[in-house]
């Protein structure tokens, strides 16, 4: 482990400071203008990071309960981290742990297919054609995506979109369609800092011609309209003009030089075969993208559900073989500790990322980057593939009003826990505890990010307890 740290630090050192990251141009929304943050208007960033398979939840009477439970013991400000989560200790004033939250439509869904809904809260039925809905990050990207070169950065270890009910991306657009995730740090790096997309420039030019054409036709048409129809039609004219402004801004981005970055850093393509280094590199990408204000929205799915992908091998970082198997092996002696160690590894890397943001003063604003970045870290499973009581960490965003240093324990007295030894699975059991709707947290997140909204995925209500 120590070796890995060392190696990464060396590479990062080489990398130098200024760099950025992001997504392909001409994705659904077009980037608009460079951010011009003054001290008054800090950027507001959002990163959502997901890991599959759930977390260790030994029974209370299990010897591993004290040390290897994922959730801390206690609640409020009186709680104690375990060996699985004590890595949060140094940053506790920037972190809130949540338990007892989930999406109502997912509560009876098997843990092998709940990642699709983590950021969307959609009702996905298996008996009809698959249909998802827009994810949290994309709701926000729609609002501020045009402020930066890239509307959002969508990443996953397994890459692409996966399949319905086994997504390999956390992000879904307004139509509920999956947005392909990028998996190679090198490609992300190149896209963000190195390679001009010549085709994008050409297509933008064409978009502009097309909009010019629509505007000309519109003016023609308007000339023939009676007065009241002219009024109705002006909405269209304004929309075309607005679209033109967007294309113009996008073109400016295309021609704008990239932030200066030391390219030597990413000449090697780091793969998940070097798990810890890979994970660090992916987090680095978000860090760099944020730091250079290339985007303000990022998602990273550390692994797809149910193994069966390269992400499953990330467990090799801590000496195991396959990550998903660890959740099944909790029924064997030492199983909780093994799963706990793997989760601790993920926690460690998340904390490293958060710490890095904390250590970086906001480049053109006030506070640290972490104060202006809202991070959601968690999974849609808790005890053995149970899609309830999600293990969640909310970090950063102090400048947006978030209050930390607490464990908001809504899981109730006896959350479902223990290993699965065959027979009926936890997710098939009756719902005995009424979880909080996670969409309430989402709504508060969006509100503090500056959006005027009262609901998410059709569910109204927020969660002001998160705020100071």
């Amino acid at each position, binding site marked *: 482990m120590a070796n890995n740290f060392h190696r990464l630090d060396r590479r990062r050192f080489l990398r130098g400071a200024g760099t950025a990251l992001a997504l392909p141009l001409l994705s659904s929304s077009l980037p608009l203008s460079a951010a011009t943050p003054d001290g008054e208007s800090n950027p507001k960033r959002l990163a959502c990071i997901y890991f599959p398979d759930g977390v260790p939840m030994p029974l209370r009477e299990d010897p591993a309960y004290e040390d290897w439970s994922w959730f801390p013991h206690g609640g409020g400000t009186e709680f104690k981290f375990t060996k699985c989560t004590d890595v949060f200790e140094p940053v506790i004033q920037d972190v809130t742990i949540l338990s007892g939250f989930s999406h109502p439509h997912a509560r009876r869904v098997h843990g092998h*297919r709940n990642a699709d809904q983590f950021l969307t809260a959609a009702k996905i039925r298996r*008996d009809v054609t698959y249909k998802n809905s827009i994810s949290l990050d994309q709701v926000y990207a729609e609002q501020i995506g045009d402020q930066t070169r890239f509307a959002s950065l969508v990443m996953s270890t397994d890459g692409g979109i996966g399949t319905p009910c086994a997504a390999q991306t956390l992000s879904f657009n307004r139509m509920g369609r999956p947005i392909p995730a990028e998996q190679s740090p090198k490609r992300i790096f190149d896209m963000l800092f190195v390679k001009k997309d010549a085709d994008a420039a050409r297509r933008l030019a064409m978009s502009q011609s097309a909009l010019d054409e629509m505007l000309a036709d519109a003016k023609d048409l308007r000339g023939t309209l009676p007065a009241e129809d002219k009024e109705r039609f002006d909405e269209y004219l304004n929309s075309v003009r607005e679209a033109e402004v967007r294309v113009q801004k996008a073109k400016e981005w295309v021609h704008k030089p990239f932030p200066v970055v030391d390219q030597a850093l990413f000449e090697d393509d780091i793969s998940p075969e070097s798990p810890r280094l890979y994970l660090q590199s992916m987090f680095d990408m978000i860090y760099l993208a944020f730091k250079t204000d290339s985007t303000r929205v990022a998602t990273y799915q550390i692994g797809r559900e149910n193994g069966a992908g390269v992400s499953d091998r990330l467990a090799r970082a801590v000496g195991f073989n396959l990550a998903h198997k660890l959740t099944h092996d909790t029924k064997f002696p030492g199983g909780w500790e093994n799963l706990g160690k793997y989760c601790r590894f993920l926690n460690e890397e998340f904390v490293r990322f958060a710490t890095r943001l904390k250590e970086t003063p906001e480049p053109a604003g006030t506070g640290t980057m972490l104060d202006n970045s809202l991070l959601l870290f968690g999974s849609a499973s808790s005890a053995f593939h149970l899609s309830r009581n999600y293990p969640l960490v909310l970090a950063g965003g102090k400048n947006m009003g978030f209050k930390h240093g607490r464990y908001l324990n809504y899981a109730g007295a006896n959350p479902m826990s223990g290993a699965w030894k065959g027979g009926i699975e936890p997710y098939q059991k009756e719902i005995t505890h009424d979880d909080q709707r996670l969409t309430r947290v989402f709504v508060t997140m969006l509100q503090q990010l500056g959006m005027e909204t009262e609901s998410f995925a059709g569910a109204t209500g927020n969660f002001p307890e998160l705020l100071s």
Partner: protein
Amino acid sequence: MIQNQLTRPLSMNCRVNAKPHGYIKRWQVALFVGVCIFALNSTALIAEDPRDQGTELGSVVEDESNDTEVNVPERPDLQKYKTKIEPLLKWACFDCHSEEHSEGNFRADQLDPDFAGGNDITWWLEVYSVLSKGEMPPPESSELTDADRIFIVDWLSAEIQKAEKLRKSSGSRSSFRRLTRYEYNYALQDLLGVPWTFADDLPEEASEDDGFENNAESLLISAKQVETYYQLTLKALQRVTVRGERPPVVYWGISMEEAFQREKKWHDDTVESTRKKFEDDPKEQSSQLERLNRQFQASNDRSHYSDLATGMRAKFEWNYRQAKYAFEASDEVPSMPATRSSFAVVHPGSREALTVDLGDRLPDVGTMRVRIRASRAEGVTQRVPSLQLYFGFQATDQGRSIKRVSQRDVQILAPYGSPEIYEWDIPLSEIEYRNTYRGSMKLGQQPNPSEYIRFVNSTVGRSRDDSESPAILIDYVEVAAPVYDEWPPRTHQNLFIESDLAHDETAYAREIITTFMSRAWRQVTPAEIDRKVELFQHIRAGSLDFQEAIIDVLATILASPKFLYVSSGEYESRADQEVARLPQAELAARLSLFLWCSVPDETLLKLASTGQLTDPEVLRQQVNRMLDDPKGSRFAQHFVQQWLKMRPLEYLSPSRGENGLDEELLESMKEEPIALFADMIRNDSRILDFVDSDYLVVNERLASHYGIPGVQGNDFRRVALPDEFNRGGLLTQAGLLTMNSDGEDSHPVKRGVWLLTNLLNDPPPPPPPAVPEIDLSDPEIAKLSLKERIEDHRDHAACLSCHQKIDPWGIAFENYDALGRWREQVDGKSIDATSVLPNNISLNGIAGLKKHLAQDREEQFVRATVEKMASFALGRQLDFGDRAEVTDITRRVREAGGGIRTLVICLVTSDLFQSR
């Protein structure tokens, strides 16, 4: 927008709504229709014979509209108001509706008697409505004599008509609007020549509760949407064009004998290894072998591979792992084998489906042609089974997708022993989710990259002892992809037309652009063509090739507001007409959007360009042609779904179980109103058939839901209906009753509101903000029957005024349960479905309701249907100024026999339709 005087909040109901805009609009319709009710119908309070009175009043309307000079509207008769009317109102109304007691927030003492010039026309319409229907003054406390009532009503009627004329000549209603999402999609389909999904990326219309989706006022647009139009037309044009050489075709020729032999071999292998394993234990060996063989021989009731030669039956097995079941593809055209002795016997139900795994070689685009050789089961002569085709894949335990790709069920008619070929053409690009592991994973690896097709026997019901087997016998499956009957395909040639000019890029571009534009835009000028040619020249240098540049230009033609917007253009004013008439090209567009939900075809454009489209005879012919065209089914679908507000059915999920809402039933429920409407259009059936009819248009699943024997198959058809079934018309359709239930039980209030709002176009006011909930924890209330509870609820003063208008209508439906099934009892108590309308007319259950509507409200019903259809046809809400036209159309329809197709023709040939 609509008139100022209509925008004042109304509250003869209970409250001032939190959302004033939608509220008011609803009321505009409500009041408007309230008036209509009077014209056709009247009540026992006014005259002894309602119909006499109705006819008399109706004739007044007609006479006036015929005799009055159009261009010299009369001034309001204010003198008469002061001397004769106001004193009567003061005596009858002011007690409750003046400064001291402004009940319902309404003050009769402040009404402006100048109907057209003042701001109170909506109030006056409501007064007119409640007086004429006998709802006000309250019957129990009223001392208003019938003579006085008639006197006021006559005055109101005359003044309203004068106001109509004034309003009409100041006409400010506009249908100018963009195409809706579904219209845009159909327009692209018709222009590009393929029925594919093109416009899914557009946002859904924010349809208003009370309007049609094509309502001009509610069709908004945003910058994002503007970008989307261009992007999606570009994508559409790329999808229908091709590049390069014809791609090679991949084939699968799969005989069920092969499938059976494969099962058999795996079985034999297992038998062999088991035999070896228990070599030393003959007893165990024989019991194990017996078990294996027993397992292998499938039950005859379940789907199986059948081998006639040996009598063996092997179960259908399939799982995705290691792509073990994938059949190998070939680059050669397979030759169809002669019929042999093995079949796949496919029983009804999705769990009994035949899965044919095709591996990972299906291309992304192009047509997948699936052919099967199939027949019915042995000895079957009556029963006609049907088949559906699905496409799907499973990559991992949870990662999977399945989608029905056949549009209509295929009926298998071939008798046993003489199988026939059945065929599907599936555009692969229309399948939204494909297996993303194709190409990156090899067959046999995990995640699994293979894809399958699945045959589902969709025949309703299982075989029973007393009926013939619904099984389908398949002995051969053939798949080829991508299949192009021509290369380049027809859709490509439609755009890149054959030309002598092809060697000269600019000249060829001009030809392509001219041809396309004159089809896509309704009118096109040489200057407009010139500009697109200039655009082509401008972008050609920066484009990859000629084809790309042309597609870019064509995309701007389809994204243009001149394509997207309709009912625009300069309006011709004719000296002898009081209203501006639509230009003929826009008339063609309006007609086409009305009946095809799409842009006009060449025939319509030609008639428009030669000025023939206003000829009533030509219009009649065109309406008939359009309704008989397959595209006419779009009218039935979209009009009916929106008219009857069927969206809630989309939110229902099928449930399993004995008395559940199974998928076939739900699907049939959604189709029944549309099928009835389409059938009535075909036969020009009486509009009154919506109220009651001696026939049904159903399929087998619905027929069995209704308990009607002898209907077979999933197609809808007209079936004669014996009286004792308590069905007929729209009111008793299972889907509409289900939609207006609460999932557990009937919901009389929903049903009443739905009937009033949609079928009678007389919507009740919305509930007040603080509705007192029915308190079920109160034991006194809990033991009441539903009807009693509603009556109790109605006793609250706040609820009374609305609910006495709603509830009696809904209670009449009480004999239908939450899934629209007939019932005589609930929880052992007999159903009491009798009720009394606010004007004291008694309804005796559904039969009474139907009788009342058909006899006493026939004209109101026809008129409401005219209004709904006119609103859909015009793409805007009707208002006060349209009243006289609607009256006239209603009269013409009724005189011509009251048929639904007649209505369409009367509407299309009316001034209302042909003017802006």
